């Protein structure tokens, strides 16, 4: 009974996902570029030690002021 219920829920979720994708596809066929999303948000920078910002080796501050995307740890997609 429990397995049947799980299977039923899985089928309903799968159908929902397909229906969502199909609806999205219909909308996109009308205006294909409308749903394009911008790239990912940058990750949060990590913790800073008590003396971090008085020294030169503060990784979050270095990332925040880095001049290149790679040094700043910007997203890849």
């Amino acid at each position, binding site marked *: 009974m429990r397995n049947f219920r799980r299977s039923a829920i899985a089928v309903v979720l799968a159908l929902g996902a397909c229906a969502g*994708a199909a609806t999205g*596809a219909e909308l996109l066929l009308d205006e294909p570029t409308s749903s394009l999303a911008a790239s990912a948000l940058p990750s*949060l920078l990590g913790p800073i030690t008590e003396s971090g910002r008085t020294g030169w080796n503060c990784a979050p*501050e270095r990332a925040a*002021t880095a001049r*290149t*995307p790679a040094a700043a740890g*910007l997203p890849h997609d």
Partner: protein
Amino acid sequence: MVRAAVAAASVLAFAAIGAGASAQTYSRPTAAPRTTDAGALAGVAREREVHERFGRGVAAAERGDWTAAAAEFRRTLSLDPPEPRGSTVRYDLALAEVHLGHDDAATGLLEEALHRDPRFAAAAANLVAVYMRRGNTAAARTVADRFVAFAPDSALARYDRGLTALRAGDLTTARADFRALIGSDPTYAVAHYDLALVELRAGRDDAARAELDQALTLSPGYARARFALGTVLMRDGRRADARIAFDRCARDAADPALRALAIDLRDKL
């Protein structure tokens, strides 16, 4: 006379060697407070507690124990350490609050940190990120403008403001920021993709197409850019090319929603 001088020199030399040896052997003892004043002693104790709790809080944060980290940083904050530790502890506590799901508390702490130190770049970066996650584009844009103003060469500042400007429909600023990012690193495919979105929204499909081609040349497996190219080709009436793009996107996409959408569009064309 000469003998006395040699003897004196020998004694001085041995004394110097002995002093050097003792300096190397024994560490300096911890200085005892040179006061019995209650206020001064309380200050020394407070300083010591700030030091200990900062260390414990950062260690807890680094092992992902955000509840313990928040408790240590809250106590540190209550001890009111001076700058730059005052803004740093607010930044650290904000990070813990975000991980505990307390975004409102986090934004308040980061705003305070930036008020105390207006050039605290990591605080600005995290504040933009939290506002963006909460969908507060206007607040994110305000902070991103400040971030770019004091760190105009920062790639993260440009990226943050480009995203907030794009979300707010300020295409001129978004275009300038993504171009600045491309200027700092022409091989960063993501900036070409975002610039393509700006151009699409500005109705400049040819410029968008060029940026997407550039992004895909740099990163052929970039599924989101491949999908965008498919939509541009579809809008241009090039259904066969669009179908090829969606098919490739369906194979490259790690995101199941994007993959499902690409498959559906491919099959409808």
